[in-house]
Each structure stands twice: as structure tokens, then as C-alpha cells.
């Protein structure tokens, strides 16, 4: 039994690499898109605020699985054919982006208005105010929910297996299909997912402590 699993390890490792790659793509893309759209939601002109609000509320109201199937099976109907890998990444990114928008809104919204005004009064431009005054303070509020979201992204990436992408989850299922050793393999999978997420939580706590000097 262990021999069979050991034999499958390289295959599982490849699946794990895909899981990490999908997670990384989703986390980075959603961070960039979410922060930009979140800034639009907080500071933008009314039409932009509405657009972001509608986007965020819609996406967050749809189950992630439905979103994945919609992007992969639904979008070809309007002429957008995506490879299963990119369809999965897009769907997960949309989902995560909506969350990042809300984390950003919450974090930035918690900074007193006087901070922006003081920054304006010394002549900082909008970008400078964000970069040197608002974001450094909002960062500490943003971090905990966001890291939570990152662990969600790693776990949620298992859904890409439903489009036949050989990530860790799919690799495990395939090995089980050959070896009929369900329990040990699922435990192995659980341990790997847990190890990644636990490491992230630890890093998060570290970072939070580093930024704890900022007053509440």
C-alpha cells in the first residue's frame, strides 16, 4: 500500500504544483484587481462606485462552483472560449476579487477622515495620500481577512479538479482510482492542504504583530 503511494508521489507532487500555481495566480490577480476596484469603490465617482458595487454584490451572491461552470461552459456561448485551466483561474479570481474589494473597503473605511485631510493639507496628491498615509494604516486591518482569503483560495482551488485539471485534488482522486487506497490518500491530501494554510496563518500572525504599533 505504502509502496503504491510512494510510487504515486511524483504524480501527486505535480498536482500539488498545479494547486500552488492556481492559488498563486488567483491570489495575485485578485489582489491587484480587488485593490484597484476597492479604491474605485471608496474614492471613485458615482458611476464607478455603482459599477464596482454591482460587480461585488453579484459575484458574492453566486456559489463559486456555479461561477466556475458558468465561465467554462457558459462563456463559449458568447464567443469566449477559455482553456479549462484559465477558465478556472478566471472564475476563482473573479470570486476572490469581490472579496478583496470588501476587505479593502473595510480597511480603508476604518481610517478616520482627518487622516486624508491632514495629508491633503500638506499638499500630497491622491496617490501619495494612499501610498504614504492611508494604505500603511489600512494594511493592518486588511491583512487578517485577506490572509484568511488566501487560505480560502488554496482550499477553493480544489474545485478546479471538477474541470478535469490535474491539481492536487484531482491527482489524489486519480491515484485512488488506481490503488483503491482512499483513506490514506485523502489524509495525505488533507495534511498537505493543512500544512500550506497553517504556514500562511503563522505568517499572518507574525505580520500582524509587526504592525501592531499602529493605534486602534
Amino acid at each position, binding site marked *: 500500500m505504502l509502496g503504491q503511494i510512494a510510487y504515486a508521489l511524483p504524480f501527486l507532487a505535480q498536482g500539488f504544483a498545479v494547486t500552488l500555481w492556481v492559488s498563486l495566480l488567483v491570489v495575485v490577480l485578485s489582489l491587484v484587481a480587488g485593490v484597484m476596484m476597492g479604491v474605485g469603490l471608496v474614492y471613485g465617482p458615482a458611476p464607478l462606485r455603482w459599477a464596482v458595487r454591482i460587480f461585488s454584490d453579484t459575484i458574492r451572491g453566486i456559489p463559486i462552483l456555479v461561477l466556475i461552470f458558468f465561465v467554462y461552459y457558459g462563456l463559449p456561448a458568447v464567443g469566449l472560449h477559455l482553456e479549462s485551466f484559465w477558465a478556472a483561474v478566471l472564475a476563482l479570481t473573479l470570486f476572490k476579487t469581490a472579496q478583496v474589494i470588501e476587505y479593502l473597503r473595510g480597511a480603508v473605511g476604518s481610517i478616520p477622515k*482627518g487622516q486624508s*485631510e*491632514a495629508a*491633503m*493639507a500638506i*499638499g*500630497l*496628491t491622491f496617490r501619495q495620500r494612499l501610498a504614504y498615509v492611508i494604505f500603511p494604516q489600512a494594511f493592518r486591518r486588511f491583512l487578517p481577512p485577506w490572509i484568511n482569503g488566501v487560505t480560502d483560495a488554496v482550499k477553493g482551488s480544489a474545485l478546479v479538479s471538477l474541470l478535469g485539471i490535474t491539481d492536487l485534488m484531482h491527482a489524489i482522486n486519480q491515484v485512488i482510482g488506481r490503488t483503491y487506497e482512499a483513506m490514506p490518500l485523502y489524509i495525505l491530501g488533507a495534511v498537505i492542504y493543512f500544512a500550506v494554510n497553517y504556514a500562511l496563518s503563522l505568517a499572518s500572525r507574525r505580520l500582524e504583530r509587526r504592525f501592531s504599533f499602529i*493605534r486602534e
Partner: protein
Amino acid sequence: MPIATPANPALLDVSEVSKSFGSVAVLRSVSLQVTRGEVVTVIGPSGSGKTTLLRCVNFLESYDSGSIRIDGREVGFRDTGARQRRSERDLAKMRAETGMVFQSFNLFPHLTAAGNIMLGLRKVRGKSSTEARAIAEHWLGRVGLAHKADSLPAELSGGQQQRVGIARAVAMEPKILLLDEITSALDPELVGEVLEVVRSLAEDGMTMVMVTHEMAFARDASSRIVFMADGGVSAAGPPAEILGADIDNERLRSFLARFRASHF
């Protein structure tokens, strides 16, 4: 009393500025001229538009009509004459011409006292880190906080925070310093140390417009007092005249009477 003349034009020229929040008129055709080196104190009951006027001067708030000029340049709108808001970059530049000190201090909590002062010097004035640090230390010395340069705002008392707030504003070498009820949030025993700093700046010839409830200080330190009521300038003149017993302005008299009743 310095009056703006062709030879001594107003540094700050507020001309017929009006502003409404919805249907509430907060400023009604306010005009006010301040010449270089003048210290003008704005007094008046709450809701009379004092703070709003101050916030319009550095365009933290826009206004509906009229004009506000500093050194001849319109603050918030383009010089073309059309009422077109300045670009973000232009606005930032114009705002750097005025310094503002806030009632609630508004220090940046993630930066040290020196860091608070250095931010504008570095990012707006383009000073090197060394230069900015030297200027910050100079001003912290001026406000009696040389030893607190590396303290975070949370480690400072209210009076100390406000003195850093003043240092942050004046280090930028603004043409005008705006002080918005800067002692209102302070414990009474800390008010003196802050006013002392303002007094020394006035002696240096810094042009200031301040909103305050410290009447004794207003009387001693101002070259002119402006009394606002209902969004308009109701009376203006030298302190002795405005705070004197024989002023011929019923609203001002009742304001001062009420004020004295509650403060003495």
C-alpha cells in the same frame, strides 16, 4: 490695522464666497482680506461657518460661488476664469501653500513626530531625507519637542501632539497658517503650551487665520478679529474694538455676553 492697498495687496483675498450644504447656506457672500503678517481671529457661535470658511481656504471643501485667492491665485479653480476645478496635482500644489492645524491633531499615527513633519518635506518639497530630518528637528526644537523626534503620536500627550501638528504645518513654509480650533480638544492645562507656540509664530510674522474660542488669546495675539454669524461676517475690526464694551452690534454683544457667562 493693515488694510490691503495696491502697495500692500491682500495675501489672502476671500471675495463673496457662498456655500450651501443642500438647502442650508453655511457661507453667505463672505469677504475677508488678510495681508502679510496679519493674525486674524475668526470668532462666532457654532454653526456660523467659521470652520467651513477655513476649510474652503485650502480647498478641503469647495464653495459654490465667489473666489478665494492666495497671492493672487485662485485656490481651487483654474486661472482661466472659467469655474473649472484644478487638477489633482495643481490642487495639491495650491494646498501646500497653506498650512492647516486641526482640532483633532490628525497626526499620522504610523509615523514618528519627525516622520510626520518629514513626509510633506520629502514628497511635496522634494527635500532629501537628511535635509528633511534637519528641518523637522529644527521645528520640533521650536515647539519644545526636540527630545520627542522619534516618538510615535500615541506616546505623546494631546498638547505635544498638537505642537507636532503645528510643526508639521509650518515646516512646509506655508504662506498662510490656518488654525482650526486647535485647543478645543485639549485638557485645559495643556492649552497654554500650544498657544505659546502660536504666539511665537505670530511674533515671527507668520500670517495666520485662526478659529478659536480662546478670547483672551484672541485679544492679545490678533491684529484683527472677525465675528461671523449665520454664515456671514457680522463685524470685523481690531480686538479692542470688537471685544470692547461699546460695540454697536447686538449679535456680537449677546454672543460675547453668553460666552463670558459660560467661561468665567
